[in-house]
């Protein structure tokens, strides 16, 4: 008993010292991290302001001078771009093309991955572990190794059937789905494996078929994970430039990333278009990010291998 106070005393002292030390350093920390946070915000704020300043100011003075002349801010660039309407290659056309690629590519990945994950977790066939490992191996395969053969495949398909998917939105969707699947299956499988088998066994005993079990039991339970996957895949496809350049580079209708890229050769003269287009292109991911951040973070954590 006599040993107890001596054992406790140093730790209590350490805690107090640590606590005081923390309190002291906390205000310093607050300042340091506030500076970091401001630095991190500056590029986004800069882009926003550039997009809100009329074209002529861009090369005259830095965007930060607007703090002294807030009257410069207008929506002129946005109205100019939007008033072009759905002209091919314009910002609205690119926005719809981006959506036309991203929505199907995302939904297909979510559906097909969930089906495959169901089979990998609840299916009764040999070699499921081997197939899962193959999926894990595919996670890091660079798209570069598939681009040319898939283009050749599309052209061969075109010469046989008369429909060549190369240069079409369907063609790029098929490619995006293939490269979204490994991550989708990986994420969904790791989620489904947490569902107790008993839940399915009960249904099986009641004579429910596999489709019924999938639809009634597995699908409703897997919605949160499917949500993470959907958001992650959406942002992945939305932000892609490489695949779009290969498959839609010569198409007049292209996604927003190509729209932005196409002005880089004449950057200074067109920065008002680039900044405004970039704001439009990051708006949808930002909405997704702020409204469904929880799911997105989960997707990112699960995707720490991609």
């Amino acid at each position, binding site marked *: 008993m006599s040993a107890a106070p001596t054992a406790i005393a140093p*730790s209590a002292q*350490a805690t107090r010292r*640590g606590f005081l030390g923390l309190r002291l*350093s906390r205000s310093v*920390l607050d300042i340091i*991290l506030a500076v*970091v*946070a401001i630095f*991190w*915000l*500056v*590029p*986004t704020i800069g882009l926003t302001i550039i997009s809100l300043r009329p074209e002529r100011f861009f090369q005259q*003075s*830095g*965007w930060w001078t607007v703090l002294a002349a807030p009257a410069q801010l207008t929506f002129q660039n946005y109205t100019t771009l939007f008033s072009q309407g759905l002209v091919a290659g314009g910002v609205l056309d690119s926005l719809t093309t981006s959506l036309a690629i991203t929505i199907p590519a995302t939904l297909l990945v979510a559906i*097909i991955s969930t*089906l*495959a994950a169901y089979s990998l977790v609840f*299916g*009764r066939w*040999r070699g499921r572990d081997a197939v*899962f490992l193959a999926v*894990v191996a595919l996670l*890091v*395969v660079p798209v*570069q*190794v*598939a681009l*040319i*053969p898939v283009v050749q495949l599309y052209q061969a398909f075109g010469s046989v059937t008369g429909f060549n998917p190369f240069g079409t939105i369907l063609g790029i969707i*098929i490619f995006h789905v*293939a490269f979204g*699947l490994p991550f989708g299956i990986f994420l969904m499988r*790791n*989620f489904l*494996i*947490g569902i107790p*088998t008993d839940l399915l066994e009960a249904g099986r005993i009641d004579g429910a078929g*596999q*489709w019924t079990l999938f639809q009634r039991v597995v699908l409703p339970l897997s919605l949160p*994970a499917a949500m993470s996957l959907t958001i992650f895949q959406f942002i992945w496809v939305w932000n892609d*430039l*490489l695949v779009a350049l290969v498959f839609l580079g010569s198409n007049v209708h292209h996604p927003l*990333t190509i729209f*932005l890229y196409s002005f*880089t050769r004449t*950057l200074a003269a067109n920065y008002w278009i680039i*900044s405004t287009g*970039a704001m439009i*292109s*990051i708006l949808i991911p930002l909405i997704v*990010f702020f409204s469904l951040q929880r*799911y997105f*973070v*989960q997707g*990112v*954590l699960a995707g*720490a*291998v991609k």
Partner: protein
Amino acid sequence: MRMAARSLGRGHPTLRAVGVSTPAGAPAATLKADATTGRPAGGGGRRDQLGSLLFLAPAAIWLLAITIYPVVVTFRNSVFDETATSYVGLHNYQVIFSDASILVTFRNNLIWVVIFPFVVTFLGLTFAVLTERIRWSTAFKTIIFMPIVFSATASALIWRTIFDLDPHIGMVNAAVQTASDWVNPPGLYPVDTSAGQTAAAFASTGLSPGASGALQSSSTAAAGDTVQLGLIGVNVGTLQVVGAQTAVPPSPSSGAISGLVYRDFSPSHPTDRGQLFPDTDGLPGMLLTLLRSDGSSAGTATTDQHGDFRFGNVGTGSYRVQLDARNFRSGFTGIFWLGGQSVTPTSHLSQTAQALLSVPLVDLAMIIAYLWMWAGFAMVVIGAGLTSLNRELLEAGRVDGATEAQIFRRITMPLLAPVLVVVLVTMIINVLKIFDVILNMAPGSSQGDASTLALAMFNEGFTGGIHSGLASAIAVILFLLVIPAMVANLRRIRG
């Protein structure tokens, strides 16, 4: 921000509930878990087996056709010519390892891999640890994490203006300019250093080059004299900035040297020099020093709006009027951050060695931009690892009297090591494939110096039609480079 609080705040309760594989090594992600849950490894009815394989069929067909088969074809294509019709052996690989413009891409990939993953992991770890101690950690994490949802294209274009050469556009150069001008204020009449101009170019009438960039009167003057000094090559923009007014001839006064500094160019008499016309401007704000014959200073003066000046109380002897060098000091004109110039000294090396050993400045600028994009990812993943640490171990350390630093080094870091490895590996794979940032951020003049394997693959394969051979060989190399990461992932998943 309400949602943010739930997701980026401490704990990640949903994460564990969802059973998503956390990099901290949630057991659900490993095959071991599969074995321990005691799921049937096979058996069941034939119909049942077929049924569950049907669920797998769409994914299997898709992956076989659009991923696995193409990988095989790429390997084949890499030893064929650019139309993929005739066999060329290892020719494409020989080209890759002998073409300087492709060898440069290996150097750049190496620069990225050596610098970026480690710096981003360090930043992520620092942020993750520090935010545990502040009250507004959710807001901080949200701000750092946000750029991850922007496309690399948009982010690269933002950073391209931040690093712009012109201080009127680029924020970094504007900051450097402010600092540089504060230390070394530019003169009212700056010379154009980019054109190799010196102050001597301004000397027109009664002036000759003086000491270290200054100008001085060609002839000497004594008390009671007047001096007229004409400068040429002062542009109209400068006149507006300094508010120049019509030159007024100086009037002599006893005991003083008075004079005029003027623009020796009259729009109405463009070829006449050394004369004052009604449209001749005086040059205001010129900083002057009266020099004794031994070169020491006998006083200073500044010209007024009409270009006039006056040195009073001048003693006997002969003097020269000096136009100080600081009048002509040029301001900071911008650093070309996005240029291909090397930050390592390589000029003494051979051309091949130069190509392989130089570190272009544009690479470092892009790495900074990429840190901005990915530090949030590292922070969130490492933060999730931190929250899932066994708090009892940390407590035990504290009870045993360990200092916070000891606890961090001896307990936290070893426990966190697997997460740090995951972040490192993920970031290495990521930068090996880096493409959009280079394409959008490096200007045309330095894109060749900044090019990477992924960009070279694209340029070789898809410029002016499809060219298979060389691009396929580059793709194969890229694939081989990610194999170690693939193996690491498989090891981890197998547990």
